């Protein structure tokens, strides 16, 4: 079987797993605040900035791959070498940071896609990236599940009346 089909099957297996439960990386980083490669630790030993910057590389990777597939499907306006290079710029290079934040599974898939990019024709490029996008969307769903939304119950949106009352209190 071709290398990309072997990888596709492994990604499918992770899609099946993460459709029902969070995977190890999600639990490690977003539920149990484990920093596996040291992200955030030099900055007062906190995990919040790792969440804040590591998670969007998942959320937006799904968008970048959506765009790359749209470009690959838009006829010949982009050659395969051009699409391979754009894939590197748009989602491979930014993904290094995701590994550092602890999303090892996603990055191991990304590295394997990167290594075989030059061998992919248009159809296999679309098919492999399509499956990878679904995997990333599953991971993103779990990130949104564990994100600390509740902290901003203490910091709600404010309006004019709020600040007018504040001014009044300040001027007493």
């Amino acid at each position, binding site marked *: 079987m071709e290398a990309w089909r072997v990888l596709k099957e492994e990604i499918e297996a992770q899609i099946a797993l993460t459709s029902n439960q969070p995977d190890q990386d999600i639990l490690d980083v977003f539920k149990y605040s484990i920093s596996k490669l040291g992200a955030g630790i030099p900055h007062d030993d906190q995990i919040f900035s790792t969440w804040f910057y590591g998670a969007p590389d998942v959320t937006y990777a799904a968008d970048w791959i959506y765009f790359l597939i749209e470009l690959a499907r*838009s006829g010949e306006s982009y050659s395969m070498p051009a699409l391979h290079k754009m894939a590197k710029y748009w989602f491979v290079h930014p993904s290094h940071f995701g590994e550092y934040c602890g999303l090892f599974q996603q990055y191991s898939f990304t590295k394997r896609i990167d290594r075989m990019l030059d061998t992919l024709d248009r159809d296999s490029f679309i098919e492999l990236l399509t499956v990878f996008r679904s995997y990333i969307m599953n991971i993103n769903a779990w990130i949104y599940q564990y994100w600390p939304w509740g902290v901003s119950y203490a910091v709600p949106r404010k309006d004019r009346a709020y600040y007018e009352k504040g001014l009044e209190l300040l001027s007493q």
Partner: protein
Amino acid sequence: MAENWKMLQQEIDAASERAVEECPDDMLRVFEYDIVRTGAGTGRLMMGPWWEGATSTRYLGSYYIFNIVKVAQDMNISAEQIRQLVNLMLPTALGTVELCDISDYARFTRQTIDCINEEIDDREDMLSLLNSLWFYGSAANAWCQYRMKWGIGLSFKVNHRDDLIYMGSRANEAFERWDHEKKEEN
């Protein structure tokens, strides 16, 4: 007709010069004073506008415009391809930037898209305008990052090996979670 895009570029460049000096109102509003005039922020929670606002601001500039400018230089793509990339990629992040009330950057971006679609055909002019927008976007990204309430993070400590070992050793002492969460969560 004075070319609108040059007037837009001047406006963006002027806003950029101000952003070198001080924090734009958009970032003060959302990240300092918790004001979102669009009413965004479900349930009045600011975490959505903070996180998705800062993130969409960063990706609008640092991944979409930055990479378009980069591939234009590296792969010599045509004016038509630049237009295609702009129309395909920018609107997605722009919608969130706008909804999170980062209004100047949203307006500049929307007007840049309009100019590239309706007024500019020359490739270098497109890149010149995108360059100006990319500079302003970098400034907006820097200010979002600087103004974000990082102090919150000081209460979310990393769990180190000793923490986890201790927690594991005390697991039997923990009060059980509500029954309906007993299912397969590992």
